[in-house]
C-alpha cells in the first residue's frame, strides 16, 4: 500500500507537472548553460566531479566518432551512434553504484564507459567477431541486446533476484522510445510492479525509432506510461547531464530502499543516423536536427564550466589529448582484433555439452582437414 500511494503522489508531484499542456522536464542546467534549481531533484557536485562528467561525455563522443570512421573504413560492419545522447547515458551511468546492474540496448556506449567496460569490448559485435562476448558480471554490465525490449524483462528478473538476496543494489534497464511499444516492456512493468522489484526503467526518448517519430509509438509522453502500472514516471531533460544524474540517482535510491520500480524518460535526440546503414534524410528534416544542436549536452556543460571558471584551457587541452589517445587505442585495437577461429562456431552453444554439436564439430574439422590434405598432396 505504501508503494501505491508513493507512486500516486510521485506521479502528480514529480516531473509530471504541466505548464500550458506540455509536460515539464526536470532540468538543472538550461540549454544556455545556466544552473537552475528544481523543487524535487537537486544535486551538488564539486568542480572536479563536474569536470569528470564533461570528460566522460567528450571521450564518449570521441569514441563514437572513431567508431563511425572505422565503420566507413570497413573495419566495422555497422555502428549505432549515440551522438547527442551523451548526457542521458553519462548522467544515468554515473548515477549507478558498482554493485548495481545495468541492462543496455545496443547503443549504450556511454553507459558502458561509466561502468569501466573496455570500449573495445563493445566493438566486437559491430566488427562481426562475436555477439558481445564480454563477461557481464565483470562490470555488472549486461551484454548488448538487439531484440527490442527483451532486456527489460531480464533486468526485472535480475532485480527480483537482488531483492530475494536481500541486497540493496539496484538494477537499471535501458530502452528506447520505439521499445516502449513492445509487449515485453509492458510485461516488465507489470512484473516489476507486482514484485516491487528494485529496477529503474530508463527510456531514452531520442525522438526516433529508425524512421518513425515517437508519435508512432505513443500519443502521450512516455513517462506517463508507468502510473497505470502502479509506479511513478518522470521526464528529465536528457541533454542535461546534471538533471539526468540527479533523477536517476533518486530513482535508484528509491529502488534500493524497497520503494520499487520507477520510470525515467530522458528526453533527448538522436543527432545522427539510426545506424551507419541508415539514411535519415529520407524521413526527417535538417531543421529538426539544427534545433536540437542548440541543446547539445556537451556544449551546455562546457558553457557552465567556463562561466563558473571550473575549467581552463589546459584542462580542455588535456581532455583533447586523452581523446586522441582513446581514439588511437580504439583504432589500433579494432584493426588488430583477431578474427575468431572457425571452430568457434561450435563453442559455447551449450555449457554442459551436446552430442550433435560434438558430432558436427568433428565432421567439420575433418572436412576442413581434407582441404589441408589436398593442398599437401598437390
Amino acid at each position, binding site marked *: 500500500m505504501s508503494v501505491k500511494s508513493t507512486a500516486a503522489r510521485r506521479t502528480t508531484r514529480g516531473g509530471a507537472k504541466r505548464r500550458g499542456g506540455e509536460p515539464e522536464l526536470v532540468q538543472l542546467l538550461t540549454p544556455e548553460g545556466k544552473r537552475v534549481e528544481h523543487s524535487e531533484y537537486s544535486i551538488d557536485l564539486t568542480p572536479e566531479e563536474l569536470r569528470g562528467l564533461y570528460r566522460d561525455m567528450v571521450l564518449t563522443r570521441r569514441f563514437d566518432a572513431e567508431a563511425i570512421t572505422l565503420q566507413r573504413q570497413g573495419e566495422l560492419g555497422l555502428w549505432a551512434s549515440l551522438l547527442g545522447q551523451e548526457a542521458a547515458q553519462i548522467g544515468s551511468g554515473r548515477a549507478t553504484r558498482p554493485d548495481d546492474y545495468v541492462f543496455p540496448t545496443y547503443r549504450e556506449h556511454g553507459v558502458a564507459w561509466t561502468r569501466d567496460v573496455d570500449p573495445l569490448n563493445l566493438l566486437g559485435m559491430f566488427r562481426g567477431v*562475436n555477439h558481445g562476448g564480454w563477461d557481464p558480471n565483470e562490470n555488472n554490465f549486461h*551484454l548488448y541486446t538487439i*531484440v527490442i525490449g527483451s532486456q527489460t524483462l*531480464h533486468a526485472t*528478473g535480475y532485480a527480483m*533476484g537482488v531483492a530475494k538476496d536481500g541486497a540493496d543494489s539496484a538494477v537499471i534497464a535501458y530502452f528506447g522510445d520505439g521499445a516502449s511499444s513492445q509487449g*515485453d516492456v509492458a510485461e516488465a512493468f507489470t512484473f516489476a510492479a507486482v514484485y516491487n522489484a528494485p529496477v529503474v526503467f530508463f527510456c531514452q526518448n531520442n525522438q526516433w525509432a529508425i524512421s518513425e517519430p515517437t508519435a508512432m509509438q505513443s500519443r502521450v509522453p512516455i513517462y506517463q506510461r508507468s502510473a497505470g502500472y502502479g509506479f511513478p514516471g518522470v521526464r528529465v531533460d536528457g541533454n542535461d547531464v546534471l538533471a539526468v544524474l540527479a533523477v536517476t540517482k533518486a530513482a535508484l535510491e528509491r529502488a534500493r530502499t524497497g520503494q520499487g520500480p520507477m520510470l525515467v524518460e530522458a528526453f533527448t535526440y538522436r543527432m545522427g543516423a539510426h545506424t551507419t546503414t541508415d539514411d535519415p534524410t529520407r524521413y526527417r528534416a535538417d531543421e529538426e536536427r539544427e534545433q536540437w544542436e542548440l541543446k547539445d549536452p556537451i556544449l551546455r556543460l562546457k558553457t557552465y564550466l567556463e562561466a563558473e571558471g571550473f575549467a581552463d584551457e589546459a584542462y580542455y587541452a588535456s581532455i583533447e589529448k586523452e581523446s586522441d589517445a582513446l581514439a588511437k587505442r580504439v583504432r589500433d585495437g579494432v584493426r588488430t582484433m583477431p578474427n575468431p577461429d572457425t571452430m568457434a562456431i561450435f563453442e559455447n552453444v551449450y*555449457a554442459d555439452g551436446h552430442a550433435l554439436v560434438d558430432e558436427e564439430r568433428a565432421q567439420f574439422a575433418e572436412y576442413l582437414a581434407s582441404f589441408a590434405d589436398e593442398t599437401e598432396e598437390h
Partner: protein
Amino acid sequence: MTTMTMAKALNEALRQSLDTDPKVLLMGEDIGKLGGVFRITDGLQKDFGEERVIDTPLAESGIVGTAIGLALRGYRPVVEIQFDGFVFPAYDQIVTQLAKMHARALGKVKMPVVIRIPYAGGIGAVEHHSESPETLFAHIPGLKVVSPSNAQDAYWMLRQSIDCDDPVIFFEPKRRYWDKGEVDTEAIPGPLHKARVTREGTDLTLAAYGPMVKVCLEAAAAAESEGRSLEVVDLRSLSPMDFDTIQASVEKTRRLVVVHEAPVFLGTGAEIAARITERCFYHLEAPVLRVGGFHAPYPPARLEEEYLPGLDRVLDAVDRALAY
C-alpha cells in the same frame, strides 16, 4: 522404491530439488496455492514459501524473461507453462534470448532454466490444450529438449534437467500424469540424454517418446500375439537425440517406425528418418516409416482418438514396413 503416479514423481523431484539447492525457484501461473492446474506443484509453496514457489502474472514472455534475469543473478528457475498451446507468447524469449545467451557471452554466463510444459493430447481438452510443439524447440540450437514416458524417468530426468547448466525444455506427457510406476529416488540415474530400449525385439524397431511409448509397448505386445517381435526404443531426449541407440537397434531389426503425436511434416520423425537412413543405409530393408499427427490443427476432442496415433495406426505402419 515406491509406487507413484508420474504427477507425484514430478512433484517429488521438484521438492527434492528445492530442498537440495536454495537457488532453485519455481515460477508459473497458479502454481502456488492451487498447486498448478495439474497439481504438479501441490504443497510446494506451503512448504517452501512464496519466495521460492512463485505465482506469476498471466504473461508467459514475462515469466521466461524474468527467469532469464533470475538465472543471470545465479538462480535456477523452473518455469511451468500451463499448457503446450500457451508457450508461444514466450517463444521469442526462449529462442532469441534463453537459447543464445550462453553463446552471446562466449560462455561467460550460464542459463540453467527449465521450462516444464505439459504437452500432447488424449485428455479431451479444448483448443490449445493438446499440442506437441517439440520440433519448434528441438530445432533451436542452444536448447535441450527431453520428455519422460514414465514415473521413474519423470523423477530423475526432471532432477537432472534442473541440475543442468543449459536451458532444458521439459515436455510432460499430460495424459500419463496419472499412470503409476515404480520410482526409485535413491537409484543412480543413467545419462539424461540417452535413449532406452524398453522392450527387446528382432523384427522391427518402434521409436517413440513421452505419451507414445505406452502405445508402442501395447503395439509390440499385440504384435507378439501375431508372432512379430518388435523392439521399442524410448528416446527420452529429443535434443540431443541418442542416434547411437536407435542405430544399434535398427542394425539388428533392419526396420524402423517412428511414432509421435506432433504432425508428421517436419516432426521429429523426419530427422530420425533422415539420419538413421544415412547411418543404416545398407541395413534398412524398408524406408523409415512415420506415424504421427496430420497436417491439420489439433482437432476437437471428439476427433482426437482418430487423430492420435493409436495401436491400429502403429500396427498398420508395422505391417507396411514389414511388407517391404
